[in-house]
């Protein structure tokens, strides 16, 4: 399941809803991205996440489908927020459930790596020097590329 929303989410409730009644699940890996108060040496007061409505949902669904194709997932979830966020706020959550932990961990990392390089979101930070668009990280491209090399789990 994927969701793109302005509102915050409840991590415990989301994992509970994802796994409830599915007693074949042995492990749930999850990742929560939080807004940091520093970036590139500047203090960040807040940031605004812009996205491309329509394409965002399509890309997240495509990435989730790919993860389900590569690993034996019993359940998966991607939630990504947009709008204005402050330090400590939750930005993104990915959770993957499988019978065994290796598949859950790998699929969770895969989803985060692909989301970072493919989901059409852009961050604008509010710094003491004014607003600043965040530049893409080459380390994110490298992280995503390893899944192409390995050819999947």
């Amino acid at each position, binding site marked *: 399941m994927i969701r793109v929303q302005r509102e915050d989410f409840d991590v415990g409730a989301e994992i509970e809803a994802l796994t409830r009644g599915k007693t074949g699940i042995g492990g749930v890996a999850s990742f929560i991205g939080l807004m940091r108060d520093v970036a590139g040496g500047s203090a960040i007061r807040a940031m605004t996440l812009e996205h491309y409505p329509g*394409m965002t949902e399509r890309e997240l669904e495509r990435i989730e489908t790919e993860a389900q194709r590569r690993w034996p997932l019993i359940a998966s979830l991607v939630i*990504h927020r947009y709008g204005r966020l402050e330090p400590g706020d939750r930005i993104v959550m990915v959770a993957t459930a499988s019978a065994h932990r290796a598949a859950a961990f790998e699929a969770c990392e895969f989803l985060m790596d692909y989301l970072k390089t493919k989901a*059409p*979101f*852009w961050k604008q930070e509010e710094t003491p020097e004014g607003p600043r*668009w965040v530049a893409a990280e080459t380390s*994110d491209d490298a992280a995503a590329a390893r899944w192409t090399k390995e050819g999947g789990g």
Partner: protein
Amino acid sequence: MRLLYFAHLRDKIGIAEERLDPPPGVADVAALIEWLKGRGPKFAAALANPKALRVAVNQTYVGWQHPVTPGDEVAIFPPVTGG
């Protein structure tokens, strides 16, 4: 054709969205970008570096040789920074 610009590309161009009818010779993404650059100095500056551009046609990432047709939704944006 519906054109969408996001993030700092939109800031530089000064437009978020527009409807355009490129001339018939503009048949793929590369030609569209070239044609847009001829529309004024803001477009020329914003679209100067092709490596810093990502293009989606009808909400799917495409390469520069991908065809564009009058009914398409074409989005041009910088590399994404979500997550």
